[in-house]
C-alpha cells in the first residue's frame, strides 16, 4: 500500500512523477501526430481534474460540462475572430463569463440531488449546445467556425512543440490546484458533503456555498480548456459542446477513478488516445469503444487508478 501511495496518492511524490513524465515524454514522441494527441490529452485532463473535484470529491454529478467547455471555446473564438479582440483577453473574458453563468445558475441547480441534478445539468448543457449550433451568424452553425491562433503579447503560439509545454504546464498547475483545494477547508467540507449533506450542515458547513464554489471552479477550468482547444485546433464545431461530449468527460473521470486526481488524468489520457488506436477497427470503432468501456466498468467498478493502487498494495 505504501509504495502505491507514494506513487499515485502522495502529493509531492505524485506531482514530481507527473513533472518528470511531462518533461521526458517528448523523447518518446516520434512525430507531430503524437504531440497532437499528447496536447489533447493535457487539455482534456484539465477539464477532468476540475470535473472530478465536483463529481468525485463533492459527489455532485454534472452531465453538462461540455456546455461550459463549448461556451468557453465559442465565446473566445467569436470575440477574437469576429470582433478582433486580442486572443488572450478573449480567453480570459470567456472564462470569466462562464464562471459568472455557473455562479448565477449554480445556486438553484445545486439544491437538486442525484438524478435530478443530473437532469438539470444535462438540460443546461443541451440548451447551450442548441443555441450555439442555431446562432449561425455568430458561430457558423453546425459546420463550425475557424478560430484565430492564440498570441500572448504579440507572440503567436504556434506549432505542436510549443503548445505541448504550455498545455503541460497548465495541466500541472491544475493538478497542483486540485491537490491544494482537496487539502483545504473547502476540500474537507466537500468530502463531508459527499458523505452526508445533512451531517455536513449540522457540523456547520455552508453546503450551498461550498458546492457553488467548486461548481464555478470546475466550470472555469472547463471553459479555459475549451478556449485553448479552439485556439490550438484553429477550428471548433458544436460536436464539442453537445451531450455526447459531456458524457465523454464524465466517462473519463469515472473510468480513471472517482475522487482520484491522477485517475482523472489517466482517464483523460486513455479515452483521448483510445479512439485514435481504435481507428484501425474502422467501421467497428464505436462498437469496440462501447464494449471496452462496458467491460472496464464491469470488471473495475471503482475505476482504473483506485483498482490498480489496491492491487499493487495487495501484492506487497
Amino acid at each position, binding site marked *: 500500500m505504501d509504495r502505491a501511495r507514494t506513487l499515485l496518492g502522495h502529493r509531492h511524490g505524485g506531482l514530481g512523477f507527473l513533472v518528470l513524465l511531462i518533461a521526458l515524454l517528448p523523447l518518446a514522441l516520434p512525430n507531430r501526430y503524437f504531440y497532437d494527441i499528447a496536447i489533447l490529452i493535457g487539455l482534456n485532463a484539465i477539464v477532468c481534474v476540475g470535473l472530478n473535484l465536483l463529481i468525485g470529491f463533492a459527489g455532485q454529478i454534472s452531465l453538462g460540462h461540455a456546455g461550459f467547455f463549448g461556451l468557453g471555446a465559442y465565446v473566445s473564438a467569436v470575440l477574437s475572430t469576429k470582433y478582433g479582440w486580442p486572443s488572450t483577453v478573449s480567453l480570459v473574458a470567456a472564462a470569466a463569463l462562464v464562471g459568472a453563468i455557473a455562479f448565477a445558475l449554480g445556486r438553484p441547480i445545486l*439544491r437538486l440531488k442525484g*438524478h435530478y441534478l443530473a437532469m438539470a445539468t444535462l*438540460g443546461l448543457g443541451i*440548451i447551450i449546445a442548441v443555441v450555439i449550433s442555431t446562432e449561425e451568424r455568430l458561430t457558423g452553425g453546425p459546420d463550425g467556425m475557424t478560430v484565430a491562433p492564440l498570441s500572448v503579447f504579440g507572440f503567436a503560439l504556434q506549432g505542436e512543440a510549443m503548445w505541448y509545454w504550455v498545455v503541460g504546464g497548465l495541466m500541472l498547475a491544475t493538478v497542483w490546484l486540485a491537490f491544494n483545494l482537496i487539502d483545504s477547508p473547502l476540500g474537507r467540507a466537500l468530502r463531508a458533503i459527499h458523505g452526508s449533506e445533512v451531517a455536513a450542515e449540522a457540523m456547520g458547513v455552508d453546503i450551498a456555498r461550498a458546492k457553488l464554489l467548486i461548481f464555478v471552479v470546475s466550470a472555469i477550468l472547463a471553459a479555459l480548456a475549451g478556449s485553448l482547444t479552439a485556439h490550438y485546433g484553429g477550428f471548433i464545431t458544436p460536436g464539442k459542446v453537445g451531450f455526447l461530449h459531456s458524457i465523454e468527460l464524465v466517462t473519463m473521470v469515472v473510468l480513471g477513478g472517482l475522487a482520484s486526481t491522477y485517475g482523472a488524468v489517466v482517464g483523460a489520457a486513455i479515452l483521448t488516445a483510445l479512439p485514435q488506436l481504435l481507428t484501425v477497427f474502422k467501421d467497428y470503432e464505436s462498437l469496440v*469503444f*462501447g464494449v471496452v*468501456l462496458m467491460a472496464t466498468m464491469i470488471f473495475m467498478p471503482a475505476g482504473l487508478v483506485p483498482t490498480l493502487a489496491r492491487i499493487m498494495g495487495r501484492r506487497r
Partner: protein
Amino acid sequence: MAELLQFLFSGLTVGATYALVALGFVIIYNASGVINFAQGEFVMAGGMASAFLVAAGVALPLAVVIAVVAGVAIGVALEKFAIEPARRAPVVTLIIITIGASIAIRGLAQLLLGKQFHTVPPFTGDNPIVIGGATILPQALWVIGASIAVVIGLGAFFSRTRLGKAMLATANNRRAAQLVGINVRFILLLSFGLSALLGAVAGVLISPITLTSYDVGIMVGLKGFAAAMLGGLGNGIGAIVGGLMLGLAEALGAGYLSSAYKDLIAFVIILAVLVFMPGGLFGKASTERV
C-alpha cells in the same frame, strides 16, 4: 383554430412516444435505481430493425413483431451481460455501463445498416384524415391508439398479475420483497425486457412518420428522461403525463415560437420545473436520514 388543432395532433403523437420511453425509464429506475441511458437505443433498434426487415422483403406485420422481439432481446441481453455482473457497483458506474451499451448498440446499428436515414411504410396507408380543418396521418392514430393499448396492458399487468405485483413490491422495498420470496434478480431482468419492449414499440410506431437512423435514439432517450423527471422519477402516471406535456409543448413551441429551437423546449421546461419544484410535478418531498 385548425392550426392549433394541427399542433395538438402532432404534439400528442410525439408525446405518446415520449410517454412510452419515459415509462421505460421509470420501470428500470424502480427496479434498480439506475437511469438507463441506453433507453433511446431501444427506440432506434425497433425502428431500424423494422426498416431493415421491410427492405429485405418481410411482410410489414411480421417485420413489426420481429423488430419488437429484437428490441426486447437487446434489453434482456443488456441486463444479463452488463448490469447483472456489475450488480454491486455504485450507481454512477452502472450508469456509465448503460452509456457504454448505448455507444455499442449505436455502433452496431451503424455497422449493419449504415449512416443514412431509413423509412418504414405506414401501417395503413398515408391518406391524411381531415378533422376540423386539421389533418392527421393514419399512422399518428396508430401511434396514439397503440400507446393507449400498451399503457392499459401495462396497468393490467401491474394490478392483476402476480408477476406485476411482485415488480411493484420490489420497487417499493427490494429487501422486503426478497424476504417474502420474490426473485428480485428475475424482476430486474424483466424490468429491462419490459422497458425495451416499450422503447421498441415506440420506435416501430413512430418511424413511418419521422424516419429513422442509427442516431435517433440519443434525443428521444434524453427527452424521455426529461419526461420521466417532469412527472417525478419513479411515478408511472407522472411519466405518461410528462411525456404528453413535453410533446404538446414542443409542437406548440415549434408552431408558434421558433422551429429552430424545437429541441430546446423540453429542456427549458424541465430546468424551470426542477428549479421551482425540485421533485418534479408529481414528486413527493423527500427527507434524508443521517
